[in-house]
């Protein structure tokens, strides 16, 4: 093997870096004769240089939080204009402006806040109940071999039942008050939390468990310092799934014989063909979902601050 030296006086002869991207007809790339060194030295191809843009520079211009709402707002504006020009019917769907005024009315007469509170309480109670059941079962199945044998197969079996299909059964069991609604939310919520918590416990890095054993941690110490914190990221993923399902379960449960809550408001609106109220309720559902998601993300930031997470490209 020989060590080759590149012909002198090419790159950087005047202390300047070789030219790359700025110059369109880079001599090296076109392979002009001057690029070939003496006696079979390989053609020296000038690398095409890319400029690394500093992060600060890239974020100049209109800030993101201003840019992002522009798309949805344009859509709404187009729709409203279509209604005003008469090319969209308000029979099928109320115009954005009507929705806004209806929203103000419903807030003004207190109907909407009251309905939201009722629905939130149902979702919250169901979430607490289902979350407690799901996480407790996952801890038993994840931490104890006996628990795994007794619980996991049963949970995996029940999990395949689509929870919406249970509504008739829940009505027979729990009547038509609050309880079937809470039960349905709890049922839907329990599974994602169970599955993710269980997987989180089982996937805790075995080398960390071993290291913790060598410093003298017993079973309780292992669970407290290694296994539960190690499973926490998965638990939070499960929580996010659960919250999505909680809303879904709530909407289903409230469509059926509710005399209070957001679902009741929607049902009544359907009877009177008030699409504006229906849209208000849908928007409220969506906003509540967003708010809850923001809470979970805040929780993640607080609880998982140790994790240098990939924050998106």
């Amino acid at each position, binding site marked *: 093997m020989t060590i080759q030296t590149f012909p002198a006086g090419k790159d950087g002869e005047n202390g300047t870096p070789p030219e790359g991207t700025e110059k369109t007809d880079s001599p090296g790339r076109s392979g002009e004769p001057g690029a070939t060194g003496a006696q079979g030295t390989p053609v020296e191809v000038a690398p095409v240089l890319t400029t690394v843009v500093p992060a600060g520079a890239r974020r100049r211009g209109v800030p993101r939080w201003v840019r992002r709402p522009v798309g949805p707002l344009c859509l709404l504006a187009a729709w409203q204009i279509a209604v005003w020009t008469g090319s969209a019917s308000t029979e099928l769907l109320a115009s954005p402006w009507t929705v806004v005024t209806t929203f103000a009315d419903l807030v003004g007469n207190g109907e909407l806040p009251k309905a939201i509170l009722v629905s939130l309480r149902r979702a919250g109670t169901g979430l607490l109940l289902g979350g407690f059941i799901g996480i407790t079962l996952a801890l038993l199945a994840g931490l104890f071999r006996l628990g795994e044998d007794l619980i996991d197969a049963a949970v995996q079996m029940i999990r395949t039942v689509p929870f919406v299909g249970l509504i008739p059964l829940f009505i027979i069991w729990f009547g038509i008050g609050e309880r079937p609604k809470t039960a349905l939310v709890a049922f839907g919520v329990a599974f994602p939390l169970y599955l993710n918590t269980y997987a989180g416990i089982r996937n805790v890095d075995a*080398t960390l468990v071993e290291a*913790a054993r*060598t410093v*003298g941690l017993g079973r309780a110490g292992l669970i407290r*310092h*290694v296994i539960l*914190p190690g499973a926490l990221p998965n638990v939070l993923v499960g929580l996010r799934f659960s919250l999505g399902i909680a809303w879904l379960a709530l909407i289903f449960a409230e469509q059926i014989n509710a005399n209070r809550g957001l679902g009741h408001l929607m049902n009544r609106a359907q009877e009177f063909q008030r699409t504006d109220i229906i849209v208000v309720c849908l928007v409220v559902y969506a906003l509540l979902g967003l708010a809850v998601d923001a809470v979970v993300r805040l929780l993640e930031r607080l609880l998982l601050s140790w*994790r240098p997470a990939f924050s998106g490209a």
Partner: protein
Amino acid sequence: MATGLQRSVTATGGGTEAPPAVVVRNLRRSFGDTTVIDDLSLSVPAGQFVTLLGRSGCGKSTLLRILADLDNEISGEVRIASRRAVAFQSPRLLPWKRVWRNVVLGLPGRPDRARALAALEEVGLAHRADAWPKTLSGGEAQRASLARALVRDPELMLLDEPFGALDALTRIRVQSLVEQLWQRHRPAILLVTHDVEEALLLADRALVMEDGVISHSVDVTLPRPRSVTDPAFVELRAELLARLGVGASSPS
């Protein structure tokens, strides 16, 4: 099950053999049909620095895990000092605990920050006490793991290739750190390595593991600090390499 050994009361030195920190007799460990450790016997006196050499896959880690009481699917007799600490090739810090809490993990009572800082100071890492482990460099994380071992004031330190993943410069620094810590605290050390030079730089005694047993034991009496250019060192290295079957004078 490995049993605890009485803590040594007498200091090392003075010519007489120190009480043992490790006693292994007729140890056997199999994985299915393959016997990795086959009738192995070994004794390490308190305060002695022992390095364990051997080809990859010859069972060094297996032996170390047994001595760390992480593996008791064994037959034979194993007695080990009750105050012991382990450092692995990767630092194995809990990523969700700050560095100082990792250092005092498992110690009885409330986490003692002052104690953690003292140990971190010894490995030159006190300024990173409040960092998250994932923000440490490889060398820093390995030193934190040494602090975690040190804070237990061990009578026996088991080190499984703790320098293996470090770059050459950091490696030299952490090597001499381990030697200093050993000279200051005098635990018995069993250091697994595949680097003959490292073994001879640090050890009172270099062991070679082969076919499931300790096949050679070389007492290294060179004065410290040692130099790889010392003729006596070079000679010893050649001898050890020959025993490992890779030296210039290797028998065919």
